[in-house]
């Protein structure tokens, strides 16, 4: 019996008929199907009569919201306004829908925000704090009621209603239209599949998955919290990417449609299990982080929540200042950057105070995003808060960034080896331009070795990736930048995190090696270390850098740059990295010396001026006295 209405509805939709055709068909099917199974296991609070079509529709929507990565409103419906309706497997009653997706869905219903809030409240999601199947189904029913013009009340859902309608994007509808003629029953999953593919595809292109949310939402609801010019650019950019991505994936393999949503990730085998894992973990993290009623950053009542495109923009800006996403932006660098925002210095000072939580004079990525967000808010007229809002706290942002950074790092390494190669070269050049002597000599040698290291590194990144998650959070506390600006470490993003793993065992070896590394720049320390795994070899530069920092922070920056070669390695690379450390230390020392000398210079200049004045006074006196002697 369930199949009947399903097939009827499916074919009705498949024809792609005009809006009116399927709606009556749906209603008819609903009427034909009667209440029947209706209430599923989890409906305790409100006995909810559901027709079969509704049942299927809701269950599929729920499944989609449960398992989907941040999908857009395409999880809604085919272009002919009404429904969907197919036999997607019903998720267990214990499953909860991702709050993010539910919010997207709710907003796609194009009801006013107040109504949506009412619905959320009524369905009990606010009460229990999540969207279980019960709440979700009730919410959908309420949406249908609201869209039919009935008041949003519990009574409304008792009667027969057409299925709730969700506005779809143009892209989705295009795809759906093209697909509907071929498919029966699973066509709604196709747009979802394409969306998911898009996410994979874009991730392959080095984008983050989260970006999909915001560009998709942009036509539907303009985020009120991001009216500034900063966001316009990422919005259009992201949206353009989305369109191109979807066009490419439009011919997505149809064979995936018969898999349950949970399996969709695995069927896209070409992308590997990792994207799926990441997606699900991403969903979980997102749904855990956010409450149902404020699950999306586009909600107008929270200007302190960073939207996805904003985050993307901030991260890009961070990268322009400091390519290593896990490292710091120094205070002076950040000052120059933020001063461009034309806010007054006291306000900027206050924003810094709010965002630099650990008060170290440098900004990590979450701190930077928080500061940037505060500046944006201030420029748009929001008064600055008394204390840092919870959604801007570094630990709150850190978990979100962790995933995205991970993705970014992974796919940067996969698909963009060249820019990464260029980065260290550029960084090296920037660093060394401040030094007069050694720059030209060592830069070419190091660049060559850098390329080798990069090539080796990329191959081992995938092995390292599983460790990144646990390590990355430790990466920050482990890094101790010396008081002067930390020279950006050339081998950034990917390998920083992994190198932390080896840092601790190395630290035990470093004391034994410090005395050996008496001559700083000269290399060829005895390879006292047992031969280590291939992974370690590539990340040794980072290890050395961090060890150097550790050591230098302990022994003072004036100490000889200790470059313990912890691992057996090709002599060429070791020498170059040691030289790099030496150069960095020399840079620091020179900067300090410069500062001291500058101060001394200014003091001496002042003294010189005073002496000049005294001399002039004395000469005047002499002039006055002279005629007296001549008698």
């Amino acid at each position, binding site marked *: 019996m369930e199949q009947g209405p399903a097939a009827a509805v499916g074919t009705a939709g498949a024809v792609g008929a005009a809006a009116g055709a399927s709606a009556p068909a749906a209603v008819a099917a609903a009427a034909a199907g009667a209440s029947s199974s209706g209430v599923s296991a989890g409906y305790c609070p409100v006995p909810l009569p559901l027709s079969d079509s509704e049942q299927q529709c809701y269950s599929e929507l729920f499944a989609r919201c449960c398992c989907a990565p941040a999908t857009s409103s395409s999880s809604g419906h085919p272009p002919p306004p009404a429904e969907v309706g197919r036999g997607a497997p019903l998720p267990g009653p214990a499953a909860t829908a991702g709050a993010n997706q539910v919010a997207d869905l709710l907003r796609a219903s194009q009801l006013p925000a107040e109504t949506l809030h009412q619905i959320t409240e009524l369905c009990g999601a606010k009460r229990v704090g999540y969207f279980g199947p019960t709440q979700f189904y009730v919410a959908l029913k309420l949406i249908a009621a609201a869209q039919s013009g009935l008041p949003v009340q519990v009574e409304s859902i008792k009667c027969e209603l057409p299925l709730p309608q969700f506005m779809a994007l143009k892209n989705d509808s295009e795809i759906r239209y093209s697909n509907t003629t071929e498919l029966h029953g699973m066509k709604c999953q196709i747009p979802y599949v394409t969306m998911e593919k898009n996410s994979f595809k874009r991730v392959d292109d080095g984008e983050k998955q989260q970006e999909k949310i915001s560009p998709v939402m942009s036509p539907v609801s303009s985020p009120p919290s991001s009216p500034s010019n900063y966001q316009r650019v990422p919005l259009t950019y992201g949206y353009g990417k989305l369109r191109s991505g979807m066009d490419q994936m439009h011919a997505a393999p149809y064979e995936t449609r018969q898999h349950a949503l949970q399996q969709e990730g695995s069927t896209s085998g070409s992308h590997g299990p990792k994207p799926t894992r990441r997606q699900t973990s991403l969903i979980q993290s997102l749904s855990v982080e956010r409450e149902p009623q404020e699950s999306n950053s586009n909600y107008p009542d929270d200007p302190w929540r960073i939207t996805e495109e904003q985050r993307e923009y901030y991260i890009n800006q961070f990268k322009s200042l400091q390519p290593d996403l896990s490292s710091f932006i*120094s*205070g*002076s660098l*950040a*000052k120059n950057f933020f001063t461009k925002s034309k806010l007054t*210095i*006291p306000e*900027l*000072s*206050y924003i*810094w*105070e709010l965002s*630099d939580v650990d*008060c*170290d*004079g440098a900004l990590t990525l979450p701190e930077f995003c928080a500061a940037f967000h505060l500046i944006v808010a201030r420029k748009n007229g929001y008064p600055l808060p*008394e204390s840092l809002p919870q959604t801007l706290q570094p630990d709150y942002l850190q978990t979100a960034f962790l995933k995205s950074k991970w993705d970014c790092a992974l796919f940067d390494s996969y698909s963009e080896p060249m820019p990464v190669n260029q980065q260290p070269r550029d960084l090296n050049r920037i660093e060394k331009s401040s030094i007069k002597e050694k720059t030209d000599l060592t830069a070419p040698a190091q660049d060559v070795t850098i390329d080798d290291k990069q090539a080796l590194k990329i191959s081992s990144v995938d092995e390292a990736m599983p460790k990144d998650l646990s390590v990355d959070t430790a990466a920050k506390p482990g890094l101790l930048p010396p008081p002067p600006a930390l020279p950006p470490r050339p081998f950034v993003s990917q390998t920083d995190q992994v190198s932390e793993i080896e840092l601790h065992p190395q630290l035990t070896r470093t004391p034994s090696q410090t005395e050996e590394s008496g001559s700083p720049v000269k290399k060829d320390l005895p390879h006292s270390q047992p031969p280590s795994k291939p992974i370690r070899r590539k990340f040794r530069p980072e290890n050395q850098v961090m060890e150097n920092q550790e050591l230098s922070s302990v022994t003072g920056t004036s100490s000889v740059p200790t470059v313990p070669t912890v691992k057996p390695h090709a002599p060429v690379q070791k020498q170059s990295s040691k030289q790099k450390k030496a150069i960095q230390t020399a840079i620091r020392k020179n900067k300090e010396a410069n500062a001291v000398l500058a101060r001394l210079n200014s003091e001496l200049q002042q003294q010189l001026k005073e002496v000049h004045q005294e001399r002039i006074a004395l000469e005047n006196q002499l002039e006055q006295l002279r005629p007296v002697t001549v008698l």
Partner: protein
Amino acid sequence: MAVCIAVIAKENYPLYIRSIPAEQELKFHYTVHTSLDVVDEKVSAMGKALVDQRELYLGLLYPTEDYKVYLLMPNGVSYKCKKLLIPCVKSMFPNQLHRYGYVTNSKVKFVMVVDSSNTALRDNEIRSMFRKLHNSYTDVMCNPFYNPGDRIHSRAFDNMVTSMMVQVC
């Protein structure tokens, strides 16, 4: 209870000065100013020999008038606090104005004027208060938008000072 807390720069001008009964602010300003002479005297007496943690804390400057003046000179650069511990100087003045001082290597001084009528402010408590002041001061220093030598407008610093003054009162 601190009735007045002042941060004096190396050149002996105030970076931050705040007192609780606002109408007596001028009086406290003078108090702090006169304390600076005592500070310099103590500092020159100490010389450079002492580089201990406890040595930045100058202790009670002179328990004159109504309040005790405590002086603190935080170390602006190095994070190793150095305090100068100097025995309290008893004075003939009947009033109980206690001032305590604390000097750092960068010659930035904190002066704290304490109402001794509430007594029982032990040395350790004063030190801990100075430590908190010091930490807040270094946080202010870390802000790249703060130019050394400016007045301190940091809200976090204000809040910390308020908490100290209120608590003590």
